[in-house]
């Protein structure tokens, strides 16, 4: 067989939880990443402690994609359910590696052109190695042969991934790998002669990371030193990561008793001049709403991360959605300034996580970060994060030396830019009253009408003051096109890829990824002026972002919503086909 070089590869590995699907997909990712492929890894797990069906997806491509493609080439199925779930997206000429321990594969479910390798992984692992546990290493041997990876490279990758395990365990896994090679030999898959070949590309320093971890890295780089959270899918990684890491950096992370406590702990820390953050998902963010408004009123800067999942209520905890947007933009009581940022990939999550941390303290109010389950939990390759790129500005923070020269200090002094100077609790000379009630410049409660207007307007001016610092949209596609694809967060990769398909089909589009969702910036207004049609691609049933845009005065007749709320991401081919069909009409 002459290996066919591949620049875009899709793999699905699925089985029961505990079969090692995630490990196997990561191993293949290690091999392909080392060859210079850009990686995107996702998983699909049931919301339960253990077991249930688990699927891992790997996309390896020479171009950075930031999402899964339309199809996969290889389906590694540890059970019949994996065949059922994976077959609809298997390429017509794809390969299926199936654990035949339980019986023959359901061929009628698979494309006619697909090649099936039935390997009794479970039986071989139990018979030869006495442990069912090793079957993913065995399957890795077969998969490595399919991609014409040399046996030595495959073994090195396996050993590297198991480097923290004890020697005898590693050796047992290597023996399983060799069983996999042996099986491939017996089925005409000689070493270096599989159906596919991997390319080799030179890359700079890259990392493979999730958005949740990246946002935590950004927080840390911007001086974030206090975190409080309550466990919830898909935000728990932020709590876990910061609980492990913050103490190494002189910080504190607390697992609070609930989300009400979490956000109020962060508020308390922020009053001492400690940069603070909390994170949750829709149901928890809903509980935090009262304090979001309080942060706006009392003028205390805290970063609030919402790793959105499918709602309403407890909804579908492990599935992505973008249906908290209305709550993030409009939620809670009263009028107060807030910022809502939306990163589209882990590099963006780092950058906006750091910016939000800085901004919250400078602007003295809530800065919300809208992630979604995909950006939060999927892994993607990005350039190595650079803490040196993070700018730290303590803004209007007062220290003792400045207070000594002031003569007078009013916590809520009305300034032209709306931003009052403030002294963290404990600072000599800065004694002040902080309250969510309306108050005068000294912090004393007041319902006096003229004061009220001055204070509401002062707080509102803060948003105008920081407008120049808010992150602008990222664009791709054809800047001259009169039709645009607009999508934030999880839509970032798929809209870009769909645009490439559309350009190839003779229908170039502009791609626009807003990164500041609130306030609505001039960049998106300009987009709506320049394009006769803007497809607003979002994961919710009620076109929440389109409503935010229309509410901000964008021409409704130019906004066309493309919605999805089945818990599954858009695929580039589907999005491109939708636009082509609509534009042809």
């Amino acid at each position, binding site marked *: 067989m002459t290996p066919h070089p591949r620049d875009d590869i899709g793999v699905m590995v699925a089985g029961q939880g505990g079969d090692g699907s995630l490990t196997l997909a990561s191993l293949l990712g290690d091999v392909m990443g080392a060859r210079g492929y850009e990686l995107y890894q996702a998983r699909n797990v049931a919301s339960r402690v253990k077991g249930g069906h688990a699927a891992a997806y790997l996309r390896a491509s020479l171009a950075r994609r930031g999402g899964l493609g339309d199809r996969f080439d290889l389906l590694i199925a540890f059970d019949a359910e994996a065949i059922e779930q994976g077959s609809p997206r298997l390429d017509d000429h794809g390969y299926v590696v199936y654990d035949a321990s339980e019986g023959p594969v359901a061929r009628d479910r698979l494309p006619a052109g697909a090649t099936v390798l039935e390997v009794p992984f479970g039986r071989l692992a139990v018979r030869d190695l006495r442990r069912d546990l090793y079957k993913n290493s065995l399957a890795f041997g077969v998969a490595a042969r399919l991609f014409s990876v040399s046996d030595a490279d495959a073994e090195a990758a396996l050993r590297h991934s198991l480097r923290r395990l004890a020697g005898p365990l590693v050796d047992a896994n290597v023996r399983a790998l060799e069983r996999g090679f042996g099986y491939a030999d017996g089925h005409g898959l000689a070493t270096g002669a599989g159906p596919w070949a991997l390319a080799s590309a030179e890359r700079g320093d890259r990392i493979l990371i999730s958005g949740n971890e990246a946002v935590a890295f950004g927080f840390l780089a911007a001086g974030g030193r206090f975190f409080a959270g309550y466990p919830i899918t898909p935000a728990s990684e932020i709590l876990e990561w910061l609980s492990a890491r913050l103490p190494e950096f002189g910080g504190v992370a607390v697992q609070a008793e609930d989300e*009400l406590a979490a956000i109020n702990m962060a508020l308390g820390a922020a009053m001492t001049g400690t940069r603070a953050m909390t994170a949750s998902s829709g149901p928890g963010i809903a509980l935090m709403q009262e304090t979001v408004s309080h942060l706006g009123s009392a003028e205390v800067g805290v970063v609030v991360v919402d790793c959105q999942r499918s709602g309403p209520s407890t909804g579908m905890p492990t599935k992505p959605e973008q249906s908290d947007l209305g709550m993030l933009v409009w939620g809670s009581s009263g009028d107060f300034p807030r910022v809502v940022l939306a990163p589209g990939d882990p590099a963006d999550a780092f950058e906006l996580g750091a910016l939000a941390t800085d901004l919250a303290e400078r602007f003295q109010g809530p800065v919300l970060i809208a992630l979604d389950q995909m950006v939060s939990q999927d892994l993607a390759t990005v350039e190595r994060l650079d803490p040196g790129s993070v700018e730290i500005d303590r803004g209007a923070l007062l220290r003792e030396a400045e*207070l000594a020269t002031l003569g007078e200090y009013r916590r809520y002094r009305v300034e032209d830019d709306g931003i009052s100077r403030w002294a963290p609790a404990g600072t000599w000379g800065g004694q002040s009253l902080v*309250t969510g009630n309306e108050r005068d410049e000294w912090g004393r409660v007041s319902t006096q009408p003229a004061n009220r207007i001055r204070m509401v307007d002062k707080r509102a001016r803060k948003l105008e003051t920081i407008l120049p610092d808010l992150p602008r949209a990222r664009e791709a596609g054809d800047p001259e096109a009169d039709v645009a694809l607009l999508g934030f967060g999880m839509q970032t990769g798929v809209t870009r890829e769909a645009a490439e398909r559309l350009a190839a089909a003779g229908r170039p589009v502009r791609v626009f990824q807003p990164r500041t969702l609130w306030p609505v910036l001039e960049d998106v207004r300009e987009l709506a002026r320049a394009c006769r049609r803007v497809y607003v691609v979002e994961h919710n049933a009620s076109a929440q972002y389109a409503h935010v845009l229309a509410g901000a005065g964008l021409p409704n007749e130019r906004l066309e919503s493309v919605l999805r709320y089945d818990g599954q991401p858009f695929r580039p081919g589907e999005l491109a086909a939708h636009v082509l069909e609509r534009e042809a009409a």
Partner: protein
Amino acid sequence: MKTEPRTYEPTVPIWCAGCGHFGVLSALQKALRDLGIPQHEVLVLAGIGCSGTIQNYLGTYGYHALHGRVLPAATGVALANPELTVIGAGGDGDGYAIGMGHLVHAFRRNTPFTYVLMNNETYGLTKGQRSPSRRADGRSVREGSVDGPLLGLSIPATTFVARGYSGWYEQLAQLTVAALEHARGGHGFAFLEVISPCVTYQDTYPEWEQVLHDVDRDPGYDPADRGAALALAASLVAEGRLAAGLLFRAEAVAPPEAPVPARVPIADAGLVARYEALLDRYAVGARPEPSRPRAAPVE
């Protein structure tokens, strides 16, 4: 010598003449003075209700929390800057109703700060609704009541529980000092409930001399004996009475070393090196290392 800037003038209390909260305010002022704590090193966090205005009367840093959220906010302050004297204050509605969930965890977590709960068994600010600490009378009040000190004593991690009465000023001042010393010494969460009657909606002044059992007047009482404290408080509640005084103070142990996040330099070179090492773990395409058995842990 540097001159302090002029800051806010403490305001005049909104409380009715005869309100128990005056006693609490006075005891707090005296304790801060006696302990010689500079005003800028104190943050008083108060809840919602009549008691939730006490921070306005002291001249220290003051914060007016959301209803029921004094304890988490104070926990955040105390963890972020343990050098501060952190005092939570609020009423029985704030602490025993809407914020009750946090009280259990404040005991359990034992973060060093003081919490003064002014218990008047009513919602004064909203004109006299019943609070969860209102004792049942078998007629109009049929729901049972909460005894905060008894609750605290039942949690093994609790280190300080006291109950004062604004009618017994000298003892209240002493208990306030003891609570502040416990928290400032880093020993943990100091809970001081003060029976602080509402003269307008729930004037119980005539009852308390009979209802309260003052352990400080009992020379045989040992406040280091948690079991005895719990048993006494429980048996008094069964008789319709309440325990008062320094009910429990755990034997002082050296407090654990606490970081001071508020004082960490943000861009310290050592932290940057640690950060880069952390990023290394995410590197893609690193050359696979030959496998080695896991090294024995270094002693």
